[in-house]
């Protein structure tokens, strides 16, 4: 009995492809948690990173927020908040967002800071407004780095979203937790494989986004 056998057994069992506990349903749930958490984290991290990066002010605050947030254990936070507010989506989203904000915030800040100052100077000298400078001069050049921050955040959220199952929610974590509880290793391995596959898909999505959104002049090819 090896891992491959479990994988094979899990995916070939037609019962795993239907119903509320079927692979499509769990996958969809997992994607939803991930997108929601990532969207919330980006809504916080991107504007804050762009603004601090552009003005050069608040660098220390960014570093502090990042370090503090990284020090918080996701699972501990989940349990703590579940105890405080009860079971539901909120105790899942908070640790996921806390997990995803630092890579987005810090890389965005760094990305904008590291843009070559001379085009920025030229744009300003030609009479471009500050908002135009940020969005039309700095952002397009900083984009590859910003995307890489979003990508690490996304990968971490994809793997960590399994904790949703601890508070009775769905997602791929269901297979892992239920499998462990039921001593059904086929399910555990199947769930873990799906999480890994989703991480790979995430990488592919970001690669494609980079190809589409980043100018060839910045990619240099």
């Amino acid at each position, binding site marked *: 009995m090896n891992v491959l056998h479990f994988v094979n057994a899990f995916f070939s069992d037609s019962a795993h492809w239907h119903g509320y506990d079927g692979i499509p349903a769990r996958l969809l749930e997992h994607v939803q948690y991930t997108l929601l958490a990532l969207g919330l984290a980006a809504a916080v991290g991107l504007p804050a990173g762009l603004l601090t990066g552009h003005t050069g002010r608040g660098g220390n605050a960014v570093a502090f927020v990042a370090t503090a947030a990284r020090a918080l254990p996701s699972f501990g936070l989940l349990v703590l908040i579940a105890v405080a507010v009860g079971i539901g989506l909120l105790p899942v989203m908070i640790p996921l967002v806390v997990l995803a904000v630092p890579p987005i915030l810090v890389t965005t800040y760094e990305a904008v800071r590291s843009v070559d100052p001379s085009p920025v100077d*030229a744009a300003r*000298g*030609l009479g471009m*407004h500050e908002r135009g400078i940020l969005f039309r001069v700095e952002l397009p050049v900083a984009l590859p780095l910003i995307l890489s921050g979003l990508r690490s955040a996304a990968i971490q959220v994809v793997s960590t979203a399994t904790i949703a199952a601890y508070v009775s929610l769905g997602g791929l974590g269901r297979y892992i937790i239920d499998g462990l509880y039921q001593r059904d290793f086929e399910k555990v391995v199947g769930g873990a494989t799906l999480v890994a596959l989703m991480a790979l898909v995430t990488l592919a999505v970001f690669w494609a986004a980079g190809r589409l959104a980043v*100018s060839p*002049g910045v990619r240099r090819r």
Partner: protein
Amino acid sequence: MDSVTKRYPDGTVAVDRLSLEIPDRSITVLVGPSGCGKTTTLRMINRMVEPSEGTILLDGEDLQQQPVTTLRRSMGYVIQNAGLFQHRTILDNIATVPRMIGWGKQKSRERAAELMARVGLDASLAKRYPYQLSGGQQQRVGVARALAADPPVLLMDEPFSAVDPVVRKGLQDELLRIQDELGKTIVFVTHDIDEAIKLGTMVAVMRTGGRLAQFAPPAELLSAPADDFVEDFLGADRGIRRLSFFSSAALETTTGPVVRADATAEQLAAADGAPHLLVTDADDRPLGWAEPGDLAAGDLAGARLLSHGRPFVPGADSLRAALDCAVLSPTGWAVAVDGEGRVTGVVSQQTIGEAIRSAHGAAGPAETRAEEPADGTKVAP
């Protein structure tokens, strides 16, 4: 600029009570050693830096009167490393300001294409990105971008400092040509005195501490430096360089030692007495110098010829160019040609020396006034 001072927050006085009247429609060069406040002065004109004291007037109106972006859009801005937007194509880089002030996409691009031609960029580069261009080409794009919305004023901060000397000379010539066509009010910053003398209608020499040392047309700078600092800054060969401002038109050339390759014995005899003879072909183009004794009538081109060196064009070239030809010539004589390269005569170092003396005499002890606008008589150095 009226008694303008800039003190940075750290206490550095970058510009100290600078008063300067920058003439319209000509090139004013700010020159001086590194750190003397040239960039600060330039950036106060488009309010990238605000003066601590003093006022700057543009056509009699205080710069503070209009919104800063409106002001900047009326002034082109070119910086040392071009500062191109690497995510935009060359065409879109140039179209930046027209797009910003609300021209349509189509119109902006047409205008950008027009400017590419004006600054000497091939149309095939339009769709490229900045990283695919050489430094010199990038700098041309920077100039085109600054000119795109046809601003009356152009501010340039060491725009050609980062390119090699050959490319730099090309860019300088191009700038002079564009200026002939467009007649902008250009303020040009450089630390290179030769560039200042070549480009400037007026040159402001600044000294460390942000003070004005002298403000004068280049010829006057060379003939009458205001003090030791300016003289030092001009360098040791300012006498020679000053010759760039004297025309070679008045040089008396002689056709005595010039013979055609198919000259007859009589013609050769007529030229006798000259230490060297310049042999030309049937179209009067120079072939080279020969010793009279080496020549046999009929086919002079077969004789052993010394190189005739680079010729000069009287009138179009300066006395400096003529002297240079004579110094480089193996015989000490410079060859004068017309626009088509046909020999019009030769001139000795001695004759050139006399012309130099009389030119200096005519220019007089150059206590000429700095307010005097430079005339357009500058000839190619």
